[in-house]
């Protein structure tokens, strides 16, 4: 090969680029692609290139109209993208920013001839390289060709071939399916039986029905390099990273440290050289991720994987180093060289250098097992975490403990232990060792527990495969725990503990003090964190990046910002119930503050997000979102106080009390705090921060409490004369039974103060209620259990802004699924199409009264149920909800901007807003949830009051059907034409299912059904194939027809809780089978009904337009107005004018 690589030709003159986003958040593909995409779009526009973006995910910053020149929120399919290409005529397509989804679509577009047909050049990574990196066989050939070692492997398309290969190689072997997300469908086969199961699943998961079976490297070190190459063949590495979990655990599920810690320079350079060789041979222009396995006992290594695109790891590397990989990769893709791109961090040097880190970065995954208690908690080569946290420290110990604090796992510090890990004498148990041997989400805690019981590092290294180096670090933490437990707390010990990342609350637990007492002592002893800058160059050059982390050292680099400023608290790791939507809100709020002349300070712990891009705010603190960290940084932002407390007369002179008084002064000088946009994480900090003397902007803590405290909320509603489903809060089983009796079954029960409807259930009988309450009181002893009459009506949802006197309602949404399905898992439609004028007026009236009556200043969210003609309030959230980005994009109303201005003191009137209800757009927008159930074995997939989805998509069109079809398509919920459907519904749902069944039959879908349902269908005179639920009575049974592909979709509704155990299990098996086979499974008849409606009406997308064009669609002109026009409806002059909508003016 020419040593300059295959792409040394002159770059094309690119003026317009199409960028494909990664779509909904699923496990394995999360917010990192919003971060990368947003950065890339901005980067391209800096170069004068116009950007056309397609992404079906409305909860992203990148789909905001400010980010690209044309934003398409449309289903990412080949025909739709071809329509966009035809309309926009881009010169180039940048496929490397949308994760695997973007890359796969680019391949499809190229293979379908779309790119050639329209003269669109593939930028960044050549198609050939994508194929080489993604196709296991080609990849292997390439590596062997350049002399890089690859583990022995074979690509198979049949289970028997896999077994034959494994027998030649000996077990265990690793299975990796081609073209899948986050290792979906992969695993480690230790026996023939295991291998057969995994390969069958992997073949099903792979779109090309191929899996790779390879030599197992379990226990080897796993190392990653982020590499960058420009068109002139200049290559650099940005960062390397070392997984604490050795090979065998997906890197997304591994604890990761950057830079590598146990590699000698020889090893570091050996792998670096190999990584550069690989990016050269692939001819990539842009970023690339290379993963290696390194033998812990020799210099032998293997290349494991190459991602020829930005990835989760590149997002982490960007945040870990300050080097903006996506930004640079985008510029390289359009022909810029590394040395022509300025380094935004130093402001002096260029992008052609390798970052040097003078700190340690630790990433810890966030798993969803707190919500899916029954899920399989073991981790392996298939990724299961929904999100991650990152922490920065000046030692491994500190970075690790800060990361654990950032997880927001119910305040679970490294001290946490499971009861079963020790026996009555405190000795380690077999369960504990099992947790260490078999990778799982609790392994880190288990290791600490074992070290606490004096199990040796050598023994633990043997069991876990962790390098002893890291185990020694955990042992150091445990040693300081011991000191804290047994020795008197002195300044020296306190300082040592803080340097190892112990929180005040951990120190308090060990030293028998309250966290507040620890803080007071610490301040009296003048032990405060300092803040160091992430500057890409280990302080070699003076840097301008406003990106800081806390540490306990001598010199502070973050002097308080001057002038007006406010802190936005972000939302932490992505988890079910608290996703990317809150990052959207946080970033938008920071932007609005800056536009209003207020410096925005951001704090967050999530490396995947836009909010932790130091460009997104005036100043970024990468810190845990706990009370201690936020108070510390707020105090750091307070100008030094005059007076005795500030003079620090030394430990002896300052009493804790005096220090506290000094703190209060400091608190009042600190910037005010915005807690409304960071989800429940941020709102939960309101009270402690207020109590510590800090100022909360907008809605007061009292009002927040009014909305969240059941009893006070009830009183408020009575005062405001707004109906609420009857119910009450209970603390005992007797109270529960009495309340349920009074309101009548079924009742909705849930613990108060929880996230994402956790542990919420619909209960139909006293027996079930007793079972629930007994379990629930353990769950939350501080707060009571709430019991409400369950009203099975239509659910309405409103996001609104109140300035204390007036309320703005940007739009009213209606849920497709009836009340009882968590709002995060329901499809929602804007505008609420089936609402009468009078009902709409009631909603506006109630929302206005609630906003003003509860004392909301800023944003809030209200959920209503419309039951037998009456509108009831279900709940009020005194914060931004997950529908804010969706509603912003459906209506064009900059909701977060307006709310932020209100919080900064600008009334709605002074922002030019006079109407309570923003005029409805002449469009329909549908939000559909997206689940990651294929990644979470043993989790039941039915829709219920507890939220399960990880992401969402938006369908937008001029008609209800058009929007619905788009949403269903983007969410993967659409049935193929005439595809067979399996129906198995509970007895109580059978009558309601009949019209739906008829509709599917009329559309030509062959029907399969289980015994009871088949009877109903036959009785309708429709043909049906009966398949038995009895799995041991002959084939094909109900699972066979799913697994063998006979059916392409499933309708299955849940039996009541009172159903027999085997009935429940049958349903579970059916739903899981559909998940494994990746076919739609409708567990709510409401969902099935809209699918049937769409299919029968023959609905298809009407328009494929930029989102702004829908807002102002003019039926006279099928093109929509020019961009300059609808920009006028945005607050460019600081004023938003409802009613001055372009289409109204036209």
């Amino acid at each position: 090969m020419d040593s300059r690589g295959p792409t040394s030709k002159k770059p094309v003159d690119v003026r317009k680029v199409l960028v494909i986003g990664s779509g909904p958040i699923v496990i394995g593909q999360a917010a990192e692609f919003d971060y990368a995409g947003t950065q890339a779009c901005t980067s391209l526009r800096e170069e004068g290139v116009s950007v056309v973006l397609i992404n079906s995910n409305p909860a992203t910053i990148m789909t905001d109209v400010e980010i690209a020149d044309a934003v398409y929120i449309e289903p990412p399919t080949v025909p739709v993208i071809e329509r966009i290409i035809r309309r926009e005529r881009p010169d180039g397509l940048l496929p490397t920013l949308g994760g695997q989804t973007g890359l796969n679509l680019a391949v499809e577009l190229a293979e379908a001839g779309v790119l050639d047909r329209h003269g669109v050049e593939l930028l960044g990574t050549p198609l050939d390289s994508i194929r080489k990196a993604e196709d296991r066989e080609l990849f292997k050939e390439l590596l062997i060709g350049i002399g890089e070692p690859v583990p022995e492997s074979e690509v198979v398309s049949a289970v028997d071939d896999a077994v034959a290969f494994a027998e030649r190689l000996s077990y265990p072997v690793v299975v990796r399916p081609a073209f899948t997300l986050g290792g979906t469908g992969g695993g480690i086969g230790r026996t023939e039986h295991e291998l057969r199961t995994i390969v069958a699943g992997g073949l099903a998961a792979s779109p090309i029905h191929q899996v790779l079976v390879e030599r197992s490297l379990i226990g080897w070190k796993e190392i990653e390099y982020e590499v960058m190459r420009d068109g002139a063949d200049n290559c650099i590495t940005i960062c390397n990273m070392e997984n604490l979990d050795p090979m065998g655990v997906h890197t997304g599920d591994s604890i990761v440290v950057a830079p590598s810690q146990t590699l000698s320079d020889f090893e570091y350079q050996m792998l670096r050289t190999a990584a550069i060789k690989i990016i050269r041979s692939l001819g990539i222009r842009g970023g690339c991720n290379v993963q290696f396995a390194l033998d812990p006992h020799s210099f032998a290594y293997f290349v494991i994987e190459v991602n020829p695109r930005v990835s989760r790891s590149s997002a982490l590397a960007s945040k870990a180093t300050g080097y903006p990989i996506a930004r640079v990769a985008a510029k390289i893709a359009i022909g810029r060289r590394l040395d022509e791109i300025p380094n935004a961090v130093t402001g002096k040097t260029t992008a052609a250098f390798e970052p040097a880190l003078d700190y340690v970065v630790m990433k810890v995954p966030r798993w969803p097992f707190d919500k899916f208690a029954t899920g399989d908690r073991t981790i392996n080569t298939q990724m299961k975490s929904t999100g991650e946290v990152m922490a920065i420290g000046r030692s491994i110990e500190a970075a690790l403990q800060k990361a654990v604090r950032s997880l927001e796992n119910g305040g679970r510090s490294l001290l946490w232990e499971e009861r079963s890990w020790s026996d009555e004498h405190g000795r380690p148990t077999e369960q504990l060792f099992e947790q260490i041997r078999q990778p799982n989400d609790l392994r880190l805690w288990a290791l600490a527990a074992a070290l606490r019981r004096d199990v040796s590092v050598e023994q633990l290294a043997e069991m876990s495969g962790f390098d002893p180096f890291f185990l020694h670090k955990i042992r150091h933490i445990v040693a300081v725990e011991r000191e804290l437990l047994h020795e008197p707390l002195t300044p020296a010990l306190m300082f040592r503990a803080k340097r190892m990342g112990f929180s005040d609350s951990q120190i308090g637990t060990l030293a028998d003090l309250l966290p507040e007492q620890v803080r007071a002592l610490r301040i009296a002893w003048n032990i405060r964190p300092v803040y160091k800058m992430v500057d890409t160059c280990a302080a070699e050059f003076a840097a301008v990046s406003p990106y800081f982390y806390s540490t306990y050292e001598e010199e502070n680099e973050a002097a308080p910002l001057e002038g007006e400023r406010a802190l936005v608290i972000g939302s932490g790791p992505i988890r079910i119930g608290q996703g990317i939507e809150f990052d959207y809100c946080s970033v938008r709020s920071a932007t609005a503050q800056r536009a209003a002349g207020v410096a925005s300070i951001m704090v967050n712990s999530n490396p995947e997000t836009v909010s932790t891009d130091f460009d997104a705010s005036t100043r970024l603190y990468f810190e845990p979102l706990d009370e201690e960290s936020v108070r510390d940084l707020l105090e750091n932002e307070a100008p030094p106080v005059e007076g005795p407390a500030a003079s620090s007369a030394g430990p002896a002179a300052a009493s804790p009390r005096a220090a506290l008084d000094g703190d209060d002064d400091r608190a009042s000088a600190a910037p005010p705090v915005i807690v409304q946009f960071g989800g429940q994480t941020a709102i939960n900090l309101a009270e402690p921060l207020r109590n510590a003397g800090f100022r909360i902007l907008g809605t007061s803590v009292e009002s927040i409490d009014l909305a969240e405290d059941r009893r006070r909320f009830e009183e408020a509603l009575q005062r405001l004369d707004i109906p609420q489903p009857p119910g009450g809060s209970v603390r005992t089983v007797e109270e529960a039974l009495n309340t349920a009796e009074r309101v009548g079954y079924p009742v909705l029960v849930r613990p108060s103060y929880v996230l994402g409807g956790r542990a919420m259930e619909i209960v139909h009988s006293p027996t079930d209620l007793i079972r629930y309450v007994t379990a629930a009181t353990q769950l939350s002893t501080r707060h009571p259990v709430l019991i409400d009459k369950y009203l099975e009506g239509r659910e309405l949802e409103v996001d609104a802004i109140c300035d204390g006197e007036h309320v703005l309602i940007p739009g009213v949404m209606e849920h497709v699924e009836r009340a009882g399905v968590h709002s995060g898992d329901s499809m929602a439609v804007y505008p609420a199409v089936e609402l009468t004028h009078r009902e709409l007026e009631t909603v506006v009236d109630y929302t206005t009264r609630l906003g003003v009556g509860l004392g909301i200043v800023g944003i809030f969210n209200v959920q209503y149920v419309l039951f037998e003609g009456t509108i009831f309030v279900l709940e009020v959230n005194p914060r931004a909800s997950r529908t804010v980005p969706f509603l912003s994009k459906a209506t064009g109303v900059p909701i977060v901007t307006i709310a932020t201005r209100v919080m900064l003191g600008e009334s709605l009137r002074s922002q030019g807003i006079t109407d309570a209800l923003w005029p409805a757009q002449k469009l329909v927008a549908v939000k559909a949830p997206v689940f990651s159930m294929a990644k979470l074995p043993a989790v039941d997939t039915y829709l219920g009051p507890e939220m399960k989805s990880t992401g969402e998509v938006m369908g937008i069109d001029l008609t209800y059907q058009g929007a619905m079809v788009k949403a269903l398509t983007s969410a993967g919920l659409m049935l193929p034409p005439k595809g067979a459907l399996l129906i198995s519904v509970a007895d109580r749902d059978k009558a309601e299912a009949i019209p739906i069944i008829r509709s599917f039959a009329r559309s030509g879908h062959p029907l399969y059904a289980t015994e009871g349902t088949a009877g109903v269908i036959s009785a309708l005179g429709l043909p049906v194939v009966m398949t038995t639920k009895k799995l041991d009575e002959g084939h094909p049974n109900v699972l066979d027809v799913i697994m063998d592909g006979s059916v392409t979709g499933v309708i299955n509704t849940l039996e009541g809780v009172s159903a027999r155990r085997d009935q429940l299990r049958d349903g579970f098996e059916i739903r899981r089978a559909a998940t494994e086979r990746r076919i739609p499974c409708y567990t709510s008849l409401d969902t099935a009904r809209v699918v049937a409606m769409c299919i029968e009406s023959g609905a298809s997308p009407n328009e494929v337009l930029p989102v702004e064009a829908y807002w102002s669609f003019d039926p006279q002109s099928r093109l929509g107005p020019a961009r300059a026009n609808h920009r006028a409806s945005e607050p460019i002059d600081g004023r938003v004018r409802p009613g001055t909508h372009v289409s109204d003016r036209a």
Partner: protein
Amino acid sequence: MSEALLVDADVCLALEDGRVFFGRSFGAPMPAEGEVVFNTSMAGYQEIATDPSYHGQMVVLTHPQIGNYGAQRIARESRRPWIAALIVRDLAEEPSHWQSTGSLHAFLLDAGVPGIQGIDTRALTRHLRDHGTMRAALGPIDRARPIEPQAADLVERARSATPLSDKNLVAQASDPAGAADRTDRPVEAASADRAGLRIAVVDCGVKHNIVRSLAARGVEVYPLSWDATVEAVLAAGAAGVVVSNGPGDPERMAGAAALTRELMRRTVPLLGICLGHQVLGLAAGGSTSRLKFGHHGGNHPVRDLLTDRIHITSQNHEFQVDAASIREGSGFFVSMVNLNDGSVEGLAHRELPAFSVQYHPEGCPGPQDNQYIFERFLDMVARPVPGADALSRDMVPADG
């Protein structure tokens, strides 16, 4: 904060401008004096400690976790550590690596090199960046006695330390016997078919990997002392000469400059590395000067003006060749520049087979991307065609 920082301290690092840092001692418990420089490499602490170019200098490592993989035989770049002291944030007490023969602490203790740990190394680095490289003294403190007078004494000691330029450090670092006694460590070399060629290395404090990089290409390496005469070089029958890296001020290297001038006159192919590059600059009639805080690390981008390509390089130098001092008439021209500060990174002659690089093509620690420099030199030796055309011919990585 300072109170708490002091509690565990038993040793103090005092800078000549009066700034002091308190930390804990490791390595040899003895006082030290020297210049303080910072190195931003994230791995390779032992290569740094044993690089003779650091003779007379205390090194602060900016990466906070040091000693993680212990001391290793193959990580030695000379027979012993040369640094005056090592300054780190956190030293690993329990190293872990299959190649480790013991802790870094033990390695330094054996060699009589002191260390200080636990200090705010970033604050120190920022101080050096802002105020320039300066002298420092390291010594124990007794917490039973008042601290301030003890610190003041150390500041005085720093101020009276002999400046780097006043010492003949090269004479001490030069160790031709040691250069032949290197440990084995794999070097990636494109070809190794130059059997029979003998290359003389003028050892001003040469790093093992320069010798290895040459030897891996099949040539016989013939180390000579820093003050070798032309006669000695010619008597060695060397087909080419490498003037190596080394410590101290290049202005003290008039003898070596005269030697290289004489070799050039005889068209003996020449490669200067680091100090050797500065020597070549002096031989070309140029001058050298001090950088504010030097270049020490493995991430310095260098633009090759002949090919317009960027290379990431490993660097360790305090002095530079002044670009303006290289006159047209000398036949030399600046062939490479540092992308960060524009300083001279390479010289080449238009007609003679002679060129030099300011950085370390052998890495150790640092990237191995620039091994091609050895390839180019040996090509030049085999076929001594001088001039810029020949230089640009193969300025691509050897793996291409």
